[in-house]
């Protein structure tokens, strides 16, 4: 618990001022859709030029800790995720807002985030001695199996109509193949457009699928979309209590988050989708998910923040970023003459502890501030749908355009808004599509990489890969087993 010693360093007033400023900044950026952690850090890095390394760490870490919170607030209130990692928060958060339980959802999500973030950083602290071994234990066959396991979530969310669910999933896979092929690194299915070289960017697609699609169903409504606020003043407390009621689920989601975080090259949004899938699969009544189950919000948000602790591990052990935002953070640290890498575990260990302490303090500040701001923003759900729709469209398009000023991003968002609308209308699955799109590239590239290094045997001889394969098979079979069990039990009762 080396970081505890650094907490009182942080309580000096100048650091506190930096932290509050940074957290506010991070929160605002997080609330603006489309702008995530890496943008926040990029904007702040030039400011740190004139600072001491310690102050720079405090500034960057606390701003970064706050970004996710802003994103989850807009996911819940207006179905507009700030970043790909927040996308899964909309699945249950927005239906809760529609039921007038936005306050409860927000407080649960923030509390789960803060606590999840703590657990992530706490475990990071414990895992530091074995950091290098742990990171090196995962190679391509494990990535591949993890990708397959992630795809089983599709089976869970498409029980409404498996056939159209499969079409949605494969459509998502095909979209994932647009861009650069994993074998040569050349363009594939780009139709001569350099915009598509890196594939469709996830943020505009997600903003289109969720925010713009939602605007379609809002714009004709003359009444407020959140029905009367049912949970009044107690909402906030109910939200916190919900986390404790589902503490086991919460812990499991944290572990999934940390696990995914440790593996560089597996995107952060995978963590939230996987833990959502796990929450649905292990629930006694999975059918309530997607219609406002607080468990859905808790699982996603805790995994999301716990992941940050995990993704610091490869950064500390090798100087290799665990996520895109972490890459920016490393860049920022390098400019101050700090080399993230093994030295951070030996000679610079005090700075590492400062980093962890700053992240923890940042989370506390961010939690309190976003709680105050978020619960006050609930009034949005009382606005008439027809007035809300243009606002959502405006902030959605603004968010897409702001990231790199490319009109193509805006067009992509619009097109996927339409696709999302028809998907919803005709019974296809947006969730299946987006999961397949996130995992498609990982599965294909890790397949080729496994074949180049280990051959077929790599899939079946490595213990971690085998465990993941077992979990994949189990989660495919489990729904049938359970429905059979339910049937036989039902018979028993009726007889």
């Amino acid at each position: 618990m080396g970081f505890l010693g650094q907490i009182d360093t942080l309580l000096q007033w100048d650091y506190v001022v930096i932290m509050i400023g940074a957290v506010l900044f991070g929160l605002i950026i997080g609330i603006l859709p489309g702008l995530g952690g890496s943008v926040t850090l990029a904007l702040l890095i030039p400011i740190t030029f004139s600072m001491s390394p310690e102050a720079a760490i405090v500034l960057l870490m606390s701003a970064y800790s706050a970004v996710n919170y802003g994103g989850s607030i807009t996911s819940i209130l207006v179905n507009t995720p700030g970043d790909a990692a927040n996308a899964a928060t909309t699945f249950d958060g927005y239906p809760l807002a529609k039921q007038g339980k936005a306050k409860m959802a927000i407080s649960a999500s923030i509390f789960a985030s803060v606590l999840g973030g703590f657990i992530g950083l706490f475990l990071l602290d414990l895992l530091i001695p074995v950091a290098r071994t742990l990171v090196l234990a995962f190679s391509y066959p494990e990535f591949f199996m993890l990708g397959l396991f992630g795809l089983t979530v599709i089976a869970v969310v498409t029980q409404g109509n498996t056939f159209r669910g499969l079409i949605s999933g494969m459509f998502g896979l095909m979209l994932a193949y647009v861009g650069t092929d994993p074998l040569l690194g050349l363009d594939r299915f780009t139709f001569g457009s350099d915009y598509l070289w890196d594939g469709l960017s996830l943020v505009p697609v997600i903003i289109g699928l969720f925010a713009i699609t939602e605007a379609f169903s809002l714009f004709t409504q003359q009444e407020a979309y959140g029905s009367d606020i049912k949970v009044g003043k107690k909402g906030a407390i109910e939200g916190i209590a919900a986390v404790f009621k589902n503490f086991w689920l919460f812990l499991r989601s944290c572990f999934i988050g940390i696990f995914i975080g440790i593996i560089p090259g597996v995107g952060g949004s995978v963590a939230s989708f996987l833990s959502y899938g796990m929450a649905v699969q292990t629930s006694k009544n999975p059918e309530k998910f997607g219609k406002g189950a607080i468990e859905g919000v808790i699982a996603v948000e805790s995994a999301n923040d716990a992941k940050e602790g995990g993704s610091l591990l490869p950064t500390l052990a090798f100087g290799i970023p665990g996520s895109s935002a972490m890459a920016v953070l490393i860049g920022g640290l390098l400019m101050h003459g700090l080399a993230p890498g093994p030295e951070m575990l030996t000679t610079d260990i005090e700075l590492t502890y400062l980093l962890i302490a700053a992240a923890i303090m940042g989370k506390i500040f961010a939690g309190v501030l976003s709680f105050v701001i978020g619960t006050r923003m609930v009034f949005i759900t009382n606005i008439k749908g027809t007035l809300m729709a243009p606002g959502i469209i405006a902030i959605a398009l603004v968010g897409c355009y702001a990231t790199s000023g490319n009109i193509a991003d805006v067009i992509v968002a619009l097109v996927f808004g339409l696709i999302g609308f028809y998907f919803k209308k005709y019974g296809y699955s947006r969730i299946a599509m987006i999961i397949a799109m996130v995992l498609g590239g990982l599965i294909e590239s890790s397949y080729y990489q496994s074949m180049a290094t280990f051959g077929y045997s790599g899939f079946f001889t490595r213990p971690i890969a085998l465990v993941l394969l077992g979990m994949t098979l189990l989660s495919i079979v489990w729904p049938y087993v359970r429905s059979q069990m339910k049937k036989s039990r039902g018979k028993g009762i009726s007889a």
Partner: protein
Amino acid sequence: MRKTKLQLFLLASSLLLVFVMAGCGASPASKDASASSNFPTKNIEFVVGYAPGGGYSDWAQAIAPFIKKHLPNQVNVIVRHMEGAGSAIAANYVQKAKPDGYTIGIYNLGGLAGTQLAREVQFDLSTVTWLARLSLDPAIATVSSKSPYQTMEDLASKDHVIMSTKGLAANATLTGAATFAEMGVKWTPLNHDGTSESLLAVIRGDADITWGSIDSQKQYIDSGDMRMLMYYNSERHPDYPDVPIPSEAGLPEEMNEAFNTHRLIGAPPELPDDIRAILEEAIKKAIDDPEFHEVLEKMEFTTSYLNSADTTEMVETALQGYQNYKDVVTELLAKE
């Protein structure tokens, strides 16, 4: 009656607001760029083709305020990240921009030359108006520090070498392919879509060797995770005196500098000479600024400045050099 007054008032005040906003937005843009004698009159856009946090972004963000300082009218130099397609999107953007000096970009010569060779692109490095070379980033070959290979010759004896790559048309892959072609080593690529993943593959031992630029791998060499086997330059690196350069290892001498990557600042083709001179001057003064040197020192960056004319000449030679290795690329991409 009162209500209409209120409405009128609101209408008037909101109209006012529109005009104020229109004014704010229009004032810098409306001035004509043709008046080059008093260039610059508005903010300059400095395009970076990579995500924030990388070497190119750090360089651009560090030097931008100093270019501003030494420009005649001290207009802002705003860094704009336009990441994607290995900086080809940004290069296309600058290529097509108006040659008025208000759009400049930072270029990765090695990377873009490879792209230009292998893919269909809109930019053409031979037509870009070069303003300066900021730094030189030589190519290196590295293995894991636990690897049994101590020299490049050790690899020649192995019948199947796995090279960790980041795209087969990338400059680093080209360097490796050309080196192995000279040595007669058989190899297979293990491709990744990020530099850090491809480095981790070597550290983990899944791949035998990788090529890259020294700036991107220095931290792993210094931390003891990786070992440098070859340094591509005209002479050995002062910090790593034991590492040979290609000509010392029996490779042709023109390989020494053929694959070095350079950080350049360029502007759209056919930039008027007087504007080019103003920008060149500002960049040169920025690089000579002692305050800027303090920043560079903090970031552990070194400069290797070349002026506009010398940079243009250097780019021409480099592009010709790449042309010589075009066969290596075509062969690489046609291989089944």
